């Protein structure tokens, strides 16, 4: 039987960490999907960019820190990680505050074409 061609899936994470389970759910979904040989990308925009701050310490609220989860993404061969430039700028977050150093910072126009290239969008 022929193998089905890989689909392009984009996970869009637009919510801040800890306040709801959405941010964690997005990471769980992208890590689980990495087992299926699809072309995965992950986009952080709006309050989702707060997940990327490097000095998170969440032991006092008894939750796992995003600073420690996010660096595993490249180990799962998830290397297409995008961050919305205007969302960072609005929140005055600079590139050197981000926990991941392999992200691609892209503007609204680039996100527009990124969405247009996908087979499936998963919104968190």
């Amino acid at each position, binding site marked *: 039987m022929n193998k089905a061609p890989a689909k392009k899936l984009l996970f*869009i994470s*637009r919510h801040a960490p800890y306040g709801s389970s959405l941010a964690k759910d997005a990471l769980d979904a992208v890590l689980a999907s990495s087992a299926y040989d699809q072309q995965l990308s992950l986009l952080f*925009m*709006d309050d989702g960019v707060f997940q990327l701050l490097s000095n998170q310490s969440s032991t006092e609220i008894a939750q796992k820190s995003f600073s420690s989860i996010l660096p595993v993404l490249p180990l799962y061969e998830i290397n297409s990680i995008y961050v*919305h430039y*205007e969302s960072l700028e609005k929140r005055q977050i600079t590139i050197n505050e981000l926990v991941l150093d392999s992200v691609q910072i892209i503007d*609204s*126009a680039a*996100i*527009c*074409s990124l*969405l*247009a290239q*996908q*087979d*499936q*969008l998963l*919104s968190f």
Partner: protein
Amino acid sequence: MSTLHTINKSPFSHATLSSCLQICGTQDGILLLEDGVFGALTSSPCIDELTAMIDAGVKVYALKGDVNARGLNEKIHAAIRLTDYNGFVQLSIEHKCVQSWY
């Protein structure tokens, strides 16, 4: 290929419509539903950006049942088309992907 963006939050209290408009392409469609239909009002905080997108070619729809339920049928901007659940299904088929802003 194009994307259908669905908005279900009021632009008076959420930034979802504004975020969507930032990255919406001219081939895309926008469907306002549930509290998202407040974005179709002539008094909506995003109405200028929304009508600019309509002028650029974006098709913007509001779900009629949600508009009528909220008593807004006289207050909807003329450039926004009303649709129903069958229309919603049709729009989902016509666009390649659906992005739900919530």
